[in-house]
């Protein structure tokens, strides 16, 4: 029964994918239905699994089979592990996927033929993501890690007619693969040194003892490069803002809630291993802080609503990594969960706006009368307040937990507070522009969507808004830390009132600055200082560094090699040999005058000479 449930959980999106891919042309219209029902099935199964095994915390459920036999002693397995971490992620992934897919029905209604492709890819993504979190070993995780990357690539480039979209998809794929290079090597190294990649074995004290300290650091850092790629950590974050070229629900699902959080999940999954190396933990903390800061500051100057959210995602992922680096595994995971809800909510809401106004620019939206979209603005407010960490929204609780984890590291704590300030600033900037700078819409007739589509659009928004509220409270004293305890039984989750006050204070400060800047225009916040602003506009030169310096260096080297291949290897060596052979032949033909008597002379001379000198 367990096995059956697990197979239902991990397999149903695959079935949806295959069915959609193989559907005959006429039936392609039912693709959304298939996709949605199968992902819901997956969600239900994981719920059922949880209900059947409420004690999963104590006794994880694990199954595995041999997948690949490398040699006599080494084999790779496929298997599934069900413990609290997986189940939490399964819930998050399947639930968010479900809502996003429902939303997509409305959002992608005009796509026509592309719709089935879209839902096929979404199902593929859900399949890969669910397997990623359900897998019981590092290699399988890596496999699905790559597959989610593929799905992300396909979905970012969904509108493949748009050169910018394909460019962005390529960037996303290549940059994440660059990060995965480290992950790949880590898998190979761990295979060599441990021979068993199961998470339970990897994180067991014996394994950690058997590896040398340097090796643990090396391996964890290598894994972390993969995490950096996938979870958009500085400096490999550059692909995520570009990835916003994809359809908005895709951004909601992949590039905010699930896939980009996979890195955080992976780190949490191997937390024992990571904890064994203090260098790695420090590195994670530093990179997390950098990411959080870079993301938050960059978000403050964006005018594209999706870019704001993308940078915000980067920044929040940085926060999660900070929590993990600081040693608070549950804070990171808790923030991941709340973030998944409120960020996908924000993205979907922005999708609703984009769908309605046909623009990404917040100023243009305001001009066209964004104020009229009451429901959407309401949910954006819920999500935004949550993101900014305003009491009592979800983000408040999780962010406080992170701040608490950072308490003993003053530098990082200060940095986190700074990040919260910027976060609150850009959130309120967004809200103020959308609501208060909005002009009254012209009296043009609203084009009415069918009620089904309206429902498809509104239902996920409302559900996610409610969900994100509930999820936040689940980590609090009010609900006895249900979620926290679920993540980690030892979690205490005590929130000190001072920290709460500081956090809120910082958020309010951000609100105030945004208020002054965008409503009153009284003071110029430091952000507009020209030098810094230019740096921000250049995105901290990271894109340039990668594309112009790094990319061009590689390409120039390739061009050199290409030249070398064409000119030296092929030209000088190969064609040169051929040419000299031909020249030699041409030289020798000179001897062949074609005149009989010349040949005869040679014959006579040589014959005579041979005889003359041979005869004694």
């Amino acid at each position, binding site marked *: 029964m367990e096995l059956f449930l697990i197979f239902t959980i991990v397999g149903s999106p695959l079935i949806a994918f295959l069915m959609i891919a193989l559907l005959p042309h006429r039936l392609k219209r039912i693709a959304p239905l298939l996709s949605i029902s199968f992902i819901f099935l997956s969600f239900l199964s994981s719920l059922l699994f949880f209900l059947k095994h409420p004690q999963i915390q104590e006794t994880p459920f694990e199954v595995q089979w041999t997948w*690949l036999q490398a040699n006599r002693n080494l084999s790779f397995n496929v298997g599934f592990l069900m413990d609290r971490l997986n189940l939490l992620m399964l819930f998050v992934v399947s639930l968010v996927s479900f809502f996003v897919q429902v939303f997509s029905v409305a959002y992608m209604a005009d796509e026509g033929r592309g719709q089935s492709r879209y839902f096929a890819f979404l199902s593929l993504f859900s399949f890969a993501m669910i397997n990623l979190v359900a897998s019981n070993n590092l*290699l399988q995780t890596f496999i699905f890690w790559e597959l989610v990357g593929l799905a992300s690539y396909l979905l970012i*480039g969904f509108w493949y*007619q748009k050169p910018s979209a394909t460019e962005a998809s390529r960037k996303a794929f290549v940059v994440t693969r660059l990060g995965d290079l480290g992950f*790949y090597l880590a898998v190979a190294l761990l295979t060599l040194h441990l021979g068993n990649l199961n998470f339970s074995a990897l994180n067991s004290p014996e394994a950690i003892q058997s590896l040398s300290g340097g090796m643990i650091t090396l391996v964890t850092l290598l894994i972390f490069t993969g995490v950096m790629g996938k979870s958009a950590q500085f400096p490999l974050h550059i692909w995520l803002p570009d990835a916003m070229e994809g359809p908005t629900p895709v951004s909601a699902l992949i590039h905010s809630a699930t896939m980009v959080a996979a890195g955080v999940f992976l780190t949490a999954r191997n937390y024992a291993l990571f904890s064994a190396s203090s260098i790695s933990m420090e590195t994670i903390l530093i990179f997390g802080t950098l990411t959080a800061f870079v993301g938050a500051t960059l978000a403050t100057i964006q005018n594209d609503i999706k870019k704001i959210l993308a940078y915000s995602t980067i920044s929040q992922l940085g926060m999660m990594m900070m929590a993990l680096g600081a040693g608070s595994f549950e804070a990171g995971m808790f923030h991941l969960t709340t973030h998944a809800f409120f960020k996908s909510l924000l993205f979907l809401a922005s999708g609703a706006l984009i769908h309605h106004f046909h623009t990404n620019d917040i100023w243009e939206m305001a001009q066209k009368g964004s104020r009229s979209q009451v429901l959407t603005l309401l949910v954006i407010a819920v999500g935004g307040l949550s993101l900014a960490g305003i009491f009592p929204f979800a983000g408040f609780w999780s962010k406080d937990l992170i701040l608490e984890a950072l308490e003993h590291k003053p530098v990082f704590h200060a940095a986190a507070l700074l990040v919260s300030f910027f976060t609150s600033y850009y959130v309120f900037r967004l809200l103020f522009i959308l609501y208060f700078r909005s002009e009254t819409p012209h009296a043009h007739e609203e084009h009415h969507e069918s009620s089904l589509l309206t429902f498809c659009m509104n239902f996920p928004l409302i559900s996610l808004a409610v969900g994100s509220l509930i999820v936040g409270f689940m980590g609090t004293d009010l609900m006895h830390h249900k979620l926290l305890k679920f993540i980690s039984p030892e979690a205490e989750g005590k929130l000190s009132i001072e920290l709460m006050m500081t956090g809120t204070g910082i958020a309010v400060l951000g609100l105030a600055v945004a208020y002054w800047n965008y409503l009153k225009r009284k003071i110029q916040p430091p952000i507009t200082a020209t030098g810094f602003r230019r740096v921000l506009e250049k995105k901290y030169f990271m894109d340039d560094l990668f594309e112009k310096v790094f990319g061009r260096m590689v390409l120039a080297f390739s061009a050199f090699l290409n030249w070398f291949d064409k000119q030296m290897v*092929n030209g000088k060596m190969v064609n040169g040999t051929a040419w000299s052979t031909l020249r030699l032949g041409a030289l020798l033909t000179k001897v062949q005058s074609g005149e009989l008597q010349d040949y005869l002379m040679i014959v006579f001379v040589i014959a005579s000479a041979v005889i003359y000198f041979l005869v004694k």
Partner: protein
Amino acid sequence: MHFGILTSILLCPVIGMILILFTPRKSEQAIKIISLIVSGISVFLSFIAYNRFDPSNVLLQMEEKISWLPQYGINYWNGVDGLNIGMILLTSIVIFTGVIVSWKLNYRVKEFFALLLFLVTGVFGVFMTLNLFFFFLFYEVAVLPMYLLIAIWGSTNKEYAALKLTIYLLLGSAFMFAIFLAIYSLAGAHTFDLMTIKDKVTFDPAFQKIAYIGLFLGCGVLAGCWPFHVWSPDGHVAAPTAVSMLHAGVLMKLGAYGIIRVALFLFPQAAQAWAPFTATLATFNILYGALVATQQRDLKYVIGYSSVSHMGIVLLGISTLTVTGLNGALFQMFSHGIMTALFFACVGHIYDECHTRFFDELGGLAHKIPILSTFFIIAGLTGLGLPGLSGFPSELLVLIAAIKTYPISGIATAIGVVVTTFYVVSAIMKAFYGPLNKNFEHIKDIDLWQYFGRGILVAFLIILGVWPKLFLNLVNPITTYLLLKGF
């Protein structure tokens, strides 16, 4: 000797060729159907052989031995073990799909299919024979039709490419044959029977060293070993679709197979001594091929250089001299064979429809030929080692083996994967995505028949990617046995 299944596989294309020669030139459809049937039969027989093959038995199976010139130790001796059963299967699959892909050919159909089947005879022969003389003979049979096939039915600088390819391959075979003769006379084997030599003769270490590197380079030319790779991109580009498929898909594997079957078999100590050198060459292959591929503007050249890069992985796997590496190399041979055949099958259709392969002129093809684009993307994803497709397990195995023996090569392999990602994705972007070129409004996607042909290849990529045991179970016992025994 029971029913000689290997000989039957070998004779299938020969019979087909003879039948084609007796078919009137006008009835092109009949010629194609004959080719399809004989290649279909060879696929069927290969599967029977695969089915009858017992992987746990590390000895030769289904042996067939006919004395031919016993005085000189030249015997017609066929047999399969884990090393070549997969290659025979690969050959039959690729020729079958190659015939399907060539269905629309209409220029000198009779000669084309006759030569194609002749070529395949040679390839089958090399893979199944256990006699060095026949090895050489079949090799030549495989190489020579290639010249005509490329020079007559090819495109883009075809005479040059055909000549270059032929000279290169003959040079490689000259190396090989010189070593074979040295084994025969200098080393005092006095027979060409591989197994007899292996069992009875002990080679002088100095001779081993020379002979191994000679064989490695001789076979390496065929396997596209750097710096003897330059024939392969040109040859692949110039060749007609089916020949490119066979060539990159099967013929390059023939070189790697030769290295394993002859060089490693006979000179294991020398292999050990030369391993750092060969691993270095292989590393060059991987990175160099991948980096050069990023600079190509012709779709086929990209694939040509990607083959160089991927064959580097095979060579690296062999150079590690570990079970894992060898398994990976063999798996990569099979996987790359199918993948690259699919690549060329796709590009062939694009060229037929668009009459160009340059990125500058292509673009947006996914609008018009979605199915073909999907196939191409699947092949590309296999090339960049995406899990779930067969390229991943093979690269993983080689990587694991290499990172232990030659860490730098291992890291280079991993970097090669990233570069491969870059050029594959760029190629997809430039050729299939973006706005559609107006000239290509009329182009058509593949029909059901062609869909079937390429679908077979896709199915293999996916099946092996998801369930690599199917292939690894074949090779694992023999590689384990060979390496434990020290060959």
